[in-house]
């Protein structure tokens, strides 16, 4: 049965601010250029080193460290498109990146799942990816899908199985963060081509994209970079994500950590532009902290000021930004911490208007999937979405006639104006749903109920059977070539 899928509801921000002023942005950019020029970035890939060599970067063969004259940086970055399209299986869900509109995705790459019905905690599997793709497909807050967990029931071809599970269960754009290496990337492009119909069509409306992590400090991952090169050549958007940890893999001051991470991202974006000028790339910087007592990774310390200044750094380079919201360190949904940490994220991000944002729905610092968490995060998302919208002020909303009619001391319940507007005046949050005896229901319980409802009732348009078969064929070829675990 096909239930009507709600239209996307991205953030359309009516208000803006600047976390970083022009002077600070220039100082950070200058620091990035200095790091690229004087310290350099290690690229452990002969293919990448050859491209840099051919374009005049200073390549140090033995250390594999590349240093970049600033002219080369500016020259190469010129071809980066400011906006591009992240296309979907259904064109209605194509995302045309643009100013003042922000599209959110789920979180991704979790490693454990807590089963909805049994509460049993176990390693994640391909079926989880498909299940959450269906939930994400239904939610208006989720504009594109990151495979939320790893398909650990598959071996080296797991990233391709995650794509297969996603494409079969949502009509929205899919963004992978696990496809690494030249060979898996070629298979992914082959699968995407089946969906798109042709290479040209795939280039015109890329139905997936990729995020590659850099390694702090100042190192690129061979497989990540070589996979990205394959995608860039096919016109598939690729982004580079730096995750500096203050005090361990980055300086313990925010500005230094940002500049260093920016150098990692820019060096990779440069490589893409040298290899495939004009290819769509995006910038992503997610800083974290080391707990000085335990060394453990903390995403939400008290002081995370200018968390979204990173969006402005991307825009300063003329690149779209993938920002990070949600991703609590809390261990369970519905707890104080799981709301306290991410509650402000969507507001703070919205005020600088990143083009795309990850990631709703995981706990324990992006590792644990409770299916209902996505519904709770989605509620936080919508609160911020309304908040950031412009307020309507006109004769109808000023309601002076109704105020005249009621006068001092009356009430508005009987007014026609009230009946006409009450429904839109109170947009119900998940905390304001009532039970049979008119008591507010527990939001966590309600979230579980809603996930169940979606899974029972929402079945997105399936892929055509021939395409399903083609994907299956490519997957079995990939398994044969990549190994079966």
């Amino acid at each position, binding site marked *: 049965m096909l239930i009507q899928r709600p239209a996307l509801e991205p953030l359309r921000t009516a*208000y803006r*601010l600047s*976390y970083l002023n022009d002077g600070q942005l220039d*100082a950070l950019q200058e*620091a990035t250029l200095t*790091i690229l020029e004087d*310290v350099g970035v*290690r690229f452990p890939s002969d293919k990448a080193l050859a491209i840099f060599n051919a374009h005049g970067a200073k390549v140090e063969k033995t*250390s594999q460290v590349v240093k970049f004259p600033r002219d080369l940086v500016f020259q190469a970055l010129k071809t980066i498109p400011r906006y591009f399209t992240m296309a979907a299986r259904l064109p209605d869900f194509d995302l045309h990146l643009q100013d003042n509109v922000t599209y959110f995705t789920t979180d991704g790459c979790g490693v454990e799942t807590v089963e909805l019905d049994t509460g049993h905690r176990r390693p994640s599997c391909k079926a989880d990816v498909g299940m959450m793709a269906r939930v994400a497909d239904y939610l208006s807050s989720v504009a594109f899908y990151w495979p939320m967990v790893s398909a650990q029931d598959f071996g080296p071809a797991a990233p391709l199985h995650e794509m297969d599970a996603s494409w079969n269960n949502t009509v929205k754009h899919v963004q992978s963060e696990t496809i690494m290496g030249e060979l898996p990337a070629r298979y992914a492009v082959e699968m995407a081509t089946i969906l798109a119909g042709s290479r040209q069509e795939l280039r015109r409306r890329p139905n997936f994209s990729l995020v590659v992590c850099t390694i702090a*400090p*100042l190192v690129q991952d061979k497989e990540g970079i070589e996979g990205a090169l394959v995608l860039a050549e096919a016109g598939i958007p690729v982004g580079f994500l730096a995750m500096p940890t203050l*005090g*361990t893999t980055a*300086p*313990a*001051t925010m500005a*230094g950590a940002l*500049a260093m991470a920016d150098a990692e991202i820019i060096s990779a974006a440069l490589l893409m532009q040298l290899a495939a000028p004009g290819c769509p790339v995006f910038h992503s910087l997610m800083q974290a902290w080391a*707990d*000085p007592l335990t060394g453990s990774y*903390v995403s*939400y*310390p*008290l*002081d*995370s000021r200018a968390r979204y200044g990173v969006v402005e750094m991307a825009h300063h380079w003329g690149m779209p930004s993938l920002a990070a919201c949600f991703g609590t*360190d*809390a261990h369970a*949904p519905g*707890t*104080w911490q799981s709301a306290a940490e991410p*509650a*402000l994220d969507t507001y703070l991000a919205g005020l600088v208007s990143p083009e795309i944002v990850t990631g709703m729905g995981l706990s324990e610092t992006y590792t644990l999937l409770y299916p209902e968490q996505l519904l709770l995060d989605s*509620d936080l998302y919508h*609160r911020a979405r309304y*908040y950031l919208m412009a*307020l*309507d*002020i006109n004769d109808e909303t000023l*309601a*002076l006639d109704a*105020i*005249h009619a009621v*006068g*001092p*001391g*009356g009430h*508005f*319940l009987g007014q026609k104006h*009230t009946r006409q*507007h009450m429904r839109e*005046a*109170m947009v*119900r*949050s998940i*905390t304001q749903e*009532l039970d049979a005896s*008119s008591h*507010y229901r527990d*939001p966590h319980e309600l979230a579980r109920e809603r996930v169940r409802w979606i899974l029972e009732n929402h079945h997105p348009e399936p892929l055509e059977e021939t395409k399903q078969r083609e994907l299956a064929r490519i997957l079995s070829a990939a398994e044969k070539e990549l190994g079966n675990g």
Partner: protein
Amino acid sequence: MGSSETPPLQPIRPAYHVRILSDEQLGQLTAGVLQVLDEVGVHCPSVKAMNIYAEHGARVDFEKQVVRIPPDIVKKTMSCAPRFYRMGARSAAHDIQLDGKALYCATDGCGIETIDFTTHQRRNSTKDDVAKMARVADYLSSIGFYWPIVSAQDFPETAPLHELDAAFNNTVKHIQTETVMGAETARYAVKMARVIAGDNATMRLRPPLSLLVCCISPLALDKDGLESALVFAEAGLPVGFMSMATTGLTAPATLAGTVVIGDAEIISALVLIQMAVPGAPVFHSFMPGVMHPRTGGYLSSSREGSLFYPVGAEMAHRWGVPTLAGVFGTDGQIPGWESASEAASSLMLCALTGAETGSGLGLLESCTLLYPESILLDDDLYQRVRVEVAGLEVDPESLALDVIKDVGPRGSFLKHRHTRVNLRHRLYSDLTGQTTANGRLRDVVEVAREKINWILQNHQPQPLQAAQQNELNRILEAADHQIGG
């Protein structure tokens, strides 16, 4: 136990600013307010107040007790109100100088039930609760001034004065009452404030007490509230008026219409105070709610309703007076996901719109229930917002380029001196991420409860001088005799 230092205040000093309403929209709203005050009027059941209105050019219908104020009188009178002033404290170091650059927050107030500090059973609130929470508030740097957080229900008639007694004895910070009603009670309260200040001149210069009075929606003022406010204003103590208009019930079912109703109520009262005492320090407080369409219940935090709070701040500023903004105040019934998801966003947006004061931290169930530990959870959210909006340092020390050069690609920053020095400056929550001896993560609510107990055992603010205590007792006895007897 000897007395302990009260930590310095840490107001929110936002480095960024947001405008929600355009000048044109503010103009439309104030034009609506002026029209309502002129044509519909407000109900004012105080002969004293009606006489003042009439003497200053308002059109008063003494029989119906309705006051209509021409627009030019409203504008002229409001122009006497000071934009900024000082809210004094028992200790001068804790005085609050309103200046538009910082947001100072109070606790919430006037709750009616308490979860007992030792038995954890729910019971009616008492004077001792006011005293204990004053000590907690005294300790917290997030609390700029104190609202007696619950009612002293063990003193039925003179409860408001006993709340002041408990507050003055247990914190050196400014006290704001929202329960002193009627001229007689107000005169006792002013006497108590004079004991704290020492003399009349100091009381005017550094008023240790202020008053908040609620209006009655739609468009009505409370006799006792108005007459109390007049006594305060004559003594030079700041007074504010709050509207809690409820969309769809006591206000139109549109956001703009609700703003018009609420603002008209507040402005009608502020005009009265400026007519009686030109230049008296006043403040504006717009904290409307939204009616739940099925139960008629009051909601302080529907998905779009929370936009009201920063809009209220902008309306206050448009009239040239400071605001007391609605921050925190959850509809949640226990400290948890709901309370955390609702609290921080209004605080952040009010800070970004330049609110001077806000209330308040520490109550649940739509500002009626005191869970002592909930103030620490709110404090944690407060600190997150405070640092989040504080701006980023970008200078040579924080950019750390030399450090990045020293460490280079693939190194670690852990051992660098710059890390040792700076990691200490990063701020971490003392509620989340706390572990037990065997490394298990602790429940944040439990950690908060423990910290409350620690504060109550260890923090004893500077006591009032014995002579001041005696004076307060004498005033209370007289009041108990006259009002309660």
